[in-house]
């Protein structure tokens, strides 16, 4: 190979690399996804992280029940806060959303959201693509509908009944199913959670398949049409600190920016814009640029190169050398970012310790004896006393674990458990155990107002850090959990899921024979 051919080859490889190397946006997306899911040991142990870092919310859509999640989900937290909106104004989560909104807007969708990254990667699969059109533009308003009704109105409506109803999480959220439920179920040690699967899971699985398939054929299928978090951040897009901005004075209205964009934007930087930077690359007059500091991203540095109208590739064009100050600042920011990621990985995976998995509460074994303090509810037997499961020896005993923020728990106590009393009366004992955490709520008042108090149920509190509950659920903090103990104190049935009267009565009938 002579010198000229060698040079040509190098240029070819160089060109190939220029076209295929990961863009800065992709690297930031990967970084954010890893930081948001830094508790990687969770996949191995099957536990979720339960430390103080969950005071903070991750900016993107990332279920906090994922074993790897290192922070809370803003949407889940918002819906949960709505449950208490009739008592406490949800200042904290609204403040966090405002903070993310004015700082980043939908830049979060383009750069920080792990589910956005997943959709971007799925769209790379080689299939024919459905481009944006009038129909997709119309459909893009659906997410505002979901935000208004499922995230805000529905939880607020049920808040009057003091019933937690995270409408979006429960019925739509693909992140909850994919990394929350999927992450937990992927570990063999959590096989006891399989009992929970039913119609709701089937519905959400169907939706998840549609979202994933849709993302292969349509750019950011979930983001554009269904994501209420994107809808919320989109409201701040025009004033956010980061994002893209068009200088109208330089714009020639050539329309290349909107044409190059895969989202349903009508103008650069409007509520649909995720700041991916494609418009920055195609603008022939350099009217579009990134807002905020130029330390991380300068114009024409984002995304893979696109041919401009004049067929000039910005990557091939001679670049302007960066000032030394900016170079140093970039280096420092990069070092800081790596330090944060490294620190997070070390903390979550090596310093933070998971609980030791207990196997004492298996079906067929004697029920472990833990102390429970009885709430002073109306018509309460043993009010104020301390009980143990062994106190009920000689009687079939149903023990149910619940907590106030669990909609499924409240639902089964309101609708299924009273049927047990109607059917069996005093022949069985029903002990209802609330979590040791009181969540800033008056649990006694909640029981008096919302749960059946005339059925002889014993409402108790699981003392000492929910040791009883964790022993029975093999240390997985998943509610509700119901066990049935026979008259000799042996566990005969256990489910970590919503249960029904039929399911319970089938076991109780056998034991009472």
């Amino acid at each position, binding site marked *: 190979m002579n010198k000229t051919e060698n040079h040509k080859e190098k240029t070819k490889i160089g060109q190939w690399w220029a076209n295929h190397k990961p863009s800065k946006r992709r690297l930031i997306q990967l970084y954010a996804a890893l930081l948001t899911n830094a508790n990687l040991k969770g996949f191995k142990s099957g536990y979720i992280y339960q430390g103080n870092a969950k005071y903070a919310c991750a900016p993107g859509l990332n279920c906090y029940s994922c074993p790897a999640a290192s922070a*809370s989900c803003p949407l*889940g937290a918002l819906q949960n806060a709505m449950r208490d909106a009739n008592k406490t104004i*949800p200042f904290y989560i609204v*403040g966090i959303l405002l903070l993310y909104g004015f700082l980043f807007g939908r830049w979060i969708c383009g750069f920080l959201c792990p589910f956005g990254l997943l959709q971007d990667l799925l769209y790379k699969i080689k299939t024919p693509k459905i481009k944006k059109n009038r129909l997709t533009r119309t459909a893009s308003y659906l997410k505002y509908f979901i935000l208004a009704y499922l995230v805000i109105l529905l939880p607020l409506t049920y808040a009057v009944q003091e019933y937690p109803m995270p409408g979006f999480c429960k019925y739509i959220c693909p992140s909850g199913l994919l990394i929350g439920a999927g992450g937990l179920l992927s570990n063999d040690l959590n096989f006891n959670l399989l009992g929970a699967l039913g119609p709701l899971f089937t519905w*959400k699985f169907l939706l998840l398949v549609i979202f994933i398939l849709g993302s292969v054929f349509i750019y950011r299928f979930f983001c554009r049409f269904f994501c209420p978090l994107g809808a919320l951040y989109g409201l701040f897009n025009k004033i956010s600190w980061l994002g893209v901005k068009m200088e109208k004075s330089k714009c020639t209205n050539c329309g290349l920016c909107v044409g190059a964009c895969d989202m349903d934007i009508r103008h650069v930087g409007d509520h649909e814009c995720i700041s991916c930077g494609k418009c920055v690359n195609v603008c022939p007059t350099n009217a579009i640029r990134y807002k905020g500091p130029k330390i991380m991203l300068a114009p024409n540095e984002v995304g893979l190169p696109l041919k401009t109208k004049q067929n000039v590739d910005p990557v091939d064009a001679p670049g302007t050398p960066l000032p030394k100050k900016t170079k140093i600042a970039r280096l420092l920011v990069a070092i800081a970012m790596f330090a944060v990621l490294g620190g997070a990985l070390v903390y979550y995976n090596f310093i933070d310790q998971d609980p030791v998995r207990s196997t004492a509460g298996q079906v067929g074994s004697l029920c472990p004896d833990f102390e429970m303090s009885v709430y002073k509810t109306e018509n309460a037997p043993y009010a104020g006393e301390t009980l143990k499961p062994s106190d009920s020896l000689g009687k079939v005993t149903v023990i149910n674990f619940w907590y106030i*923020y669990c909609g*499924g728990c409240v639902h089964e106590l309101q609708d299924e458990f009273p049927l047990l009393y109607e059917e069996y009366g005093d022949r069985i004992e029903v002990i209802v155990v609330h979590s040791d955490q009181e969540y800033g709520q008056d649990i006694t008042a909640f029981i008096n107002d919302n749960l059946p108090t005339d059925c002889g149920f014993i409402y108790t509190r699981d003392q000492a850090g929910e040791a009883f509950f964790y022993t029975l659920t093999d240390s997985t903090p998943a509610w509700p959990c119901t066990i049935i103990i026979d008259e000799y104190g042996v566990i005969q049935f256990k489910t970590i899921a*919503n249960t029904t009267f039929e399911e319970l009565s089938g076991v109780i009938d056998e034991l009472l024979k």
Partner: protein
Amino acid sequence: MSKTAQKWIHLIVSCILSAMLIGLGIALIISCLDIYNSGPKPYTPESIAAHFQKISLLVYLTAACVVLGIVLNLVMPQEKKKVKAFRDNAETLSRLEAKAGMLEGEFAQKAAKEKNLRKILRLCTAIACVLLAIRPLLHFMNQDNFLGDKTQCVIRAMTIALVYGAASLSLTFLCKALCSKSIDRQIDIYKASIASNGASGLKPVVDDDKDAKRAFILRCVLAVAAITFIVLGIFNGGAEAVLDKANAICMECIGMG
């Protein structure tokens, strides 16, 4: 290899991959429904694996096709399509407005008529949308509609909201389409005026600095509000509630049941 041959290879691979992905999606849904209908609970990893075993070949084949597609893209990259321009006619109109200057006579009358038509259309649509939003809101405000089976109540409420939402969305888009037609007509009026009277040579008045200042002020207000809210939230137990909820798994909330 010729460009046409490359194009055909890309097309065939992408079509096969699409068919396989859609097939896999359908197979996954059928398997899930099959598991759900097969019962009895509780499911075991073995019983679930047995169901998915049936589609394992399809999974492997699809994965192989996806890898083939990636390799093909790396080895034989497709040419990027030329970006199609998308002009916003409202922006074109504002530019023409400035370019044409003050309209006179028949042109001015016609342009004013189109402007008024758009105003009336927008006002009527806004009123109709507000009226359409009242019915679902009333449904949500009435607690009697949310007693009993939760899922049934939610389905009923969402159906009502969707029907009225779809109606208001359709109205909005009808209004937008009509406005767009009106803008096109006004563009023609300005073009005709420029053709007969000549251009004024003016450009639309754009003040980027003013927009930036407004955004900065809003950002400052929001920053203060956000920090105040977070501090208030820490003191009123909001932060604790976020932590407590994040540390517990509600099976229903993650869609498991």
